[in-house]
């Protein structure tokens, strides 16, 4: 069957209802199709590869390679190398969870970034090891209860965007499925470049977050509008642009609607301060090192 990015994620996949990764894949497929482009997916161990479903069928409408947990950027390097040696079209896209990105695959990702491999790396960050049933990762936010942090994680979330920007790769950007226009524009921007392009997508996970599936988009919208998850982009690791300014939404709404956070156990004042500081820091960068 011929590959079409248009139907990148096919019906009949076994992802949970309300899965943010599913929405992200659908948006990615549309953005690729709109650009007349397509892709080969390289997916490490994560929900994303289980999405493919049982052999010999597949839920992916594009060529898809399962890699080992830490290896997707390295496998993608090999695939992209041969594509380029043969002047073939199409993107090579790593589609990896936060475990494969922030944790086990970070060295591999860093190396591929340092080599400026001609690939697009998208991390769908649901802040948990979802595929294994909900353990903490270094993307899990402070306070979240997981099966390995039963009384709430003490440490905060790793700032993987800063790490990736520090590699001075051509493009690093965050994506929110609650901002589809920005999402599509950034995919288009990434498609127009070559070299390493890193995209971090906040991916709601009703199962892991213990939230209503129907609230998925609303939750990540609150994350953006409150400054919990800034939507911005970094060019060449140097110039910054904030794409969606928070509108003063209180992050409390984010915590209240997810049972992974114990009621009343989050220091909301501290969280509000952190949101403000996070955005203030980015605004300084965007002003001092603007894209204009």
């Amino acid at each position, binding site marked *: 069957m011929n590959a079409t990015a248009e139907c990148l994620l096919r019906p009949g996949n*076994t992802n949970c*209802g309300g899965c943010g990764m*599913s929405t992200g894949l659908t948006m990615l497929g549309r953005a690729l199709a709109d650009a007349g482009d397509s892709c080969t997916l390289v997916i490490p161990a994560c929900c994303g590869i289980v999405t493919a*479903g049982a052999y010999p*069928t597949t*839920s992916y409408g594009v060529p898809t390679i399962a890699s080992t947990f830490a290896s997707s950027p390295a496998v993608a390097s090999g695939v992209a190398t041969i594509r380029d040696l043969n002047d073939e079209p199409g993107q090579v896209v790593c589609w990896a969870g936060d475990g494969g990105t922030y944790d086990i695959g970070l060295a591999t990702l860093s190396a591929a970034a340092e080599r400026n491999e001609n690939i697009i790396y998208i991390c769908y960050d649901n802040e948990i090891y979802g595929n294994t049933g909900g353990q903490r990762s270094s993307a899990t936010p402070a306070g979240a209860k997981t099966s390995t942090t039963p009384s709430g994680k003490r440490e905060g979330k790793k700032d993987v965007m800063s790490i990736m920007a520090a590699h001075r790769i051509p493009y690093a950007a965050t994506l929110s*499925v609650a901002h589809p226009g920005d999402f599509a524009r950034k995919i288009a921007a990434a498609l127009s470049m070559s070299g390493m392009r890193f995209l971090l997508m906040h991916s709601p996970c*009703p199962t892991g977050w213990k939230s*209503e*599936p129907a609230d998925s988009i609303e939750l990540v919208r609150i994350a953006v509008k409150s400054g919990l998850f800034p939507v911005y982009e970094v060019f060449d690791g140097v110039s910054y642009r904030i794409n969606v300014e928070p509108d003063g939404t209180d992050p409390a709404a984010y915590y209240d609607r997810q049972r992974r956070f114990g009621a009343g156990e989050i220091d909301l004042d501290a969280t509000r301060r952190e949101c403000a500081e996070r955005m203030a820091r980015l605004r300084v960068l965007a002003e001092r090192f603007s894209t204009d």
Partner: protein
Amino acid sequence: MIEIRIHGRGGQGGVTLAKLIATSRFLDGLSVQAFGLYAAERSGAPIQAFCRFSAEPITNRNLIYEPDHVIVLDPTLIAPALTSGLKPGGWILLNTPQAPSDFAEEFADYRIATVDATTIARDNGLGTRSMPIVNTALAGSVCRMLGFPLEEMHAALDHLGFQGPNISAATRAHDEALLLDAPRRPDGERLAVPPPGEARGPSIVKGAGAAMPAIKTGAWATEQPRRRQMIPPCNHVCPAGNNVQGFLNALAHDDVDKALDILLRSTPFPSVCGRACPAPCMDVCNRVELDGAVNVRQMERFAGDRGHADVGPDARRSERIAIVGSGPAGLTAAFHLARFGYRVEVFEAADEPGGLLTAGIPEFRLPEDVVAREIRRIVDLGVGIETNRRIDRPSLLYLTRRYDAVLVATGLQKPRELQLGLNGTQAVVQGIDFLDHVHRGDVRVDGEDVVVIGGGNTAMDAARSALRLGAASVRVVYRRTRDEMPAIGEEVDEALEEDIRIDYLTQPIVLHEVPTDGARRLYRLTCRRMEPGEPDESGRRAPLEVPGSDFDLACHRIILALGQSPDVSVFPEGTEVREGAQLLGLLETPVFAVGDLATSEGTVAGAIGSGRRSAVHIHNALSGDSIEITEHADALRDVDEWMDEVAGAGDMKLHLFERQAAVEGGDLPVEVRRSTFDEVHMGLEDTTEAARCMSCGVCNECDVCCTYCPEGMLRRVRHGLEFDYTYCKGCGVCATECPRNVIRMSQLSS
């Protein structure tokens, strides 16, 4: 050994239920096993879990193929297949609010237990709304069903770390379980178990398949999205019956011609109403709650002025229809009847058509050429307009013999009087007469001090016309407050800008002439201050006189603008004149009153609405058709359901809309305005404003649902949304994200 198979959905806790049962048996001294069957399925997918316990050590490490009992965690999974391999006489425990007897026939070989574990779990706050965790409740029912002491399950719950609400849920489900304790079909009549499927053998080299998964994930859904459209408030209140949401949506897509086409389905006067309508739609616009009403009036003007549309007629019919009066009601009826294909003649007493539109609304608000253009569109449909033809009672009877139907649309012609003592002299003129003279250009007020009495549009129009004709001063006297003024708010604002003074809560009492030496005759109008009292039947606060508050105003002219009433002298005495009622009942030919004559609404839009309704009424009567006029938008016909409710602000997800101020059109500068009859409002330059319409309760094909659907299974098919229920998992994202509440989730039963 007892073996139990559990059917559930990922996330409901089936494996944990198996562990709970096993643990309770283990604490009772038995050898136990509990395990799941793990694969790619995720939250919501049908899953199986197993449990076995025995007094002897268990050496069986295989799946359970012939269970003694079956437990079903989700009502939507209740199907004949779940008895596969189940030993006759075994228990089937179903999570359902139904009674066991409801399943007696379907599962005749087995004993049946039911419990509404979903409600129990929700009541105890276990799981999420869409995915309640029912395992601990069902554990209680299992004890009841299999005759184990509930205390043993409590111990097992405690052993596995379950507390509080889980214990309560188990206890309640134990007590509330309903049992049907004997199978009903004699042994030996059991259905054969289908053989397992054959193994296939392709390989990674021969070509990992490219086919789509065979899983129909629609089977996971416990809820499904349905579209239910409501009535937009603007459509609901529009006196003309315009599909406001519809034409705004067309403009939002920059389709001006389509916008005009939608408007012409109800009104032949979009350019007129786009200038002269009080726009009640803007008062009820839900956007007021966010950042101000959509500027509907200006958008209607834009569509009327700039759009092009082919109006037909659609057919040719032989019936002839006479219409008396060429005001907005008569011409609207003529327009629609002509579009139906009827031969229409309009009889107008004045020397030009248009009625109030030409004679009653001044140029600076409604330029003549605008009215002329919209009347020409009606004439071009083949409507004949005979001017200088006043119809009296005998000539009306004559018409009824010549025509198949007659409509009388003579409007409100009798102005209300206020006896001031000098009525009938040149000191006091009626507003509509004054405006007619202004239109004809044969009235002079230059240098005069003019007092206008009234608070409606005629008052404002007369006052502002007098100003433009060079009056030295113009003041309006109104007995109530600004809030009660029936005039369009903007017109009042503009009058004030133009230095017209308005005396609120002022009641004119009497007029006296004041002797002077000059050529002009001077008068003294004695007025009395009023104060607002209790609300009257119109809901407005009735003015009460303030004793001893009289004062005088000097003036050269009084213009009375207190409204008009219908002139029904054309009809026989005692005729009840109302819309839709057939008059002159003795004759075969139906005669109808239409517009202000029948309704006294007093607005152009109301007259248009009445004209259209009457046209449809006559058409239905003559042709046997049964066309209905509805307030529903027609953007999306293929909906699951229309709700007969108006979408209020509470029905809208206002937080999903960006704030954006309304686009206001430019006006002529005040200093220019005072001396010219040029149009005050200059209109809008583009359709940007239309995009502010939130399309309340009506799908406007924003496609947010398609964008966010995690499955990508929502597809746009022409002007409908197709939900692919074969694959829809029922997550509800589309419903949460639909900004206009068109998509709602509905619960599926088993």
